């Protein structure tokens, strides 16, 4: 450790690296937005919840109705993330490895859920799966209720999370070394052995990252779910819907406490994603 005057170290380090201007201005704009719009609001949320005290927080965040809402949220999001990851792997594989008419159109359509407002998705899904809807006509008589049920929640969550699962896996499949697969086949491995022992280990980190992204997206989703779930407490009420209904009753303390639990779940997903992506980047090198 050298003993330079501490105040001059950061600026000198910056200036020595580059002659480019604009450090001060861009740092000012960036920190204003990040601190003002992200750090302070989330800190206020957490402090508000903390001001309830441990007992008060538990009383607000751990009611039977709230517990049921976390369970529905987690269960539906996990189911949706698993389905999205599997379907995402299939679609990504087909898009990269197989040539067929309409492949580019299929590739473009994958992004629809990113551009389509979630309220529109929720509205359309609920009209498709009610008794008189296009798909409901066929499915409801067989006993499959896609609207106003937990299945409905899973359906819209698959819709909103599918692009994440596909787009994370796609570039990794593109970068796979095909020679290794050919070598495995030449050495007598079957197609399924090649896939399980050679291909899968290479793309598994990406699949897991896609799963975590899909889960994080699904946990927070609100717009599409309110349309299709029916929002029945203890049955089809997810945590974000409960926050809104508490807020509309002006029960701020309870809404805040539930929001902090949900925030905790999403931020831990973010950390998982970051760790996985670092590992992914290391593997790619």
């Amino acid at each position, binding site marked *: 450790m050298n003993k330079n005057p501490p105040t001059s170290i950061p600026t000198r380090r910056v200036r020595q690296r580059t002659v480019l201007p604009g450090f001060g201005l*861009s740092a000012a704009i960036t920190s204003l937005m990040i601190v003002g719009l992200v750090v302070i609001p989330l800190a*206020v949320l957490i402090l508000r919840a903390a001001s309830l005290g441990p007992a008060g927080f538990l009383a607000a965040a751990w009611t039977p109705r709230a517990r049921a809402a976390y369970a529905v949220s987690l269960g539906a999001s996990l189911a949706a993330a698993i389905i999205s990851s599997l379907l995402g792997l299939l679609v990504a594989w087909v898009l990269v*490895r197989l040539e067929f008419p309409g492949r580019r159109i299929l590739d*473009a359509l994958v992004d629809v859920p990113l551009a389509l407002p979630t309220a529109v998705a929720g*509205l359309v899904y609920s009209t*498709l799966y009610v008794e008189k809807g296009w798909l409901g006509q066929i499915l409801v008589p067989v006993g499959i209720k896609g609207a106003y049920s937990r299945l409905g929640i899973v359906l819209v969550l698959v819709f909103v999370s599918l692009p994440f699962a596909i787009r994370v896996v796609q570039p990794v499949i593109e970068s796979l070394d095909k020679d290794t697969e050919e070598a495995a086949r030449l050495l007598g491995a079957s197609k399924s052995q090649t896939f399980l022992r050679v291909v899968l280990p290479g793309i598994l980190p990406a699949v897991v990252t896609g799963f975590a992204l899909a889960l994080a997206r699904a946990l*927070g989703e609100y717009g599409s779910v309110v349309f299709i779930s029916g929002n029945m407490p203890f049955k089809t009420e997810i945590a*974000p819907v409960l926050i809104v209904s508490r807020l509309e009753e002006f029960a701020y303390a309870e809404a805040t406490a539930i929001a902090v639990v949900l925030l905790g779940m999403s931020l831990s997903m973010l950390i998982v994603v970051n760790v996985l992506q670092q590992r992914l980047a290391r593997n790619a090198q």
Partner: protein
Amino acid sequence: MTSKPRDAATATSPLGLLLITGAVATVGLLIVAPLASVFVDAFSNGPRAWWEALAHDPDTRHAIWLSLTVAPIAVLINTIFGVAAAWLVARFRFPGRSLLVSLFDVPFSVSPVVAGLALVLIFGRQGLLGPTLAGLAVKVIFAWPGLVLATTFVTLPLVVRELIPVMEAIGPEEEMAAVSLGANGWQVFWRVTLPNIRWALLHGVVLANARAMGEFGAVYVVSGHIAGATDTMPLRVEKLFQEYRTPASMAVASVLAALALLTLVAKVFIERQLETESKELEAARAPGADTDPTTGGLGP
């Protein structure tokens, strides 16, 4: 996103056909069927009824106008933020840089409802700044500034995320050359940086705009959902649906869906431009090309 498939042969094998069928069925059932049914339902009573549902309802007209105001403001703010943040992160090394980069992603993983609630806790009547704002007679929550803040929050990562990888790939050499030739900061930005990042910037702006026009959860919480005052188009879709006016709701939804399709067309076009430019960049970086006199000796 689009690469050349390498084993086209297996597409005609039974397994290949099965996989293609599965992928097409997935996208068809989950994505294409809902999208198609928006337009079918919206026009089921004829184009006249569709037009009347949109143009003859003053609350719907107001919602369209409000969305067309709030989204561009939020996108503009995020464009300025995105360019500044990408410049900071891609051109300078400083302590806390990687923490800052991970903070950019936070709005992606926070539920929009939670984000809206956090804004209510600050700017609402009982919020931290509530009394101060009331004294100044400024309304943020249940008014358009709240809508802008909420929309800006949820779209915050979209522009900066597009710019950072492109600016890092291009590198600072051209900008440093411009500085050494006497250009000032704004000249460097307008004449060197902006032309280099224009397609990536446009890509981010298009995505941010789509998300801004469609945002529901965060906007729902801060808007108070007042028809004719704070209802944006997605909120109007929900209110009409709750009032059992599904055809009118579908009409508004069809406008949003058309916008989403337009976004995708723009996105595909921009991605093609980006691909061309990154190939040009690679060609310029090929061995032998780095004796370019403008970058010689200025690299890190």
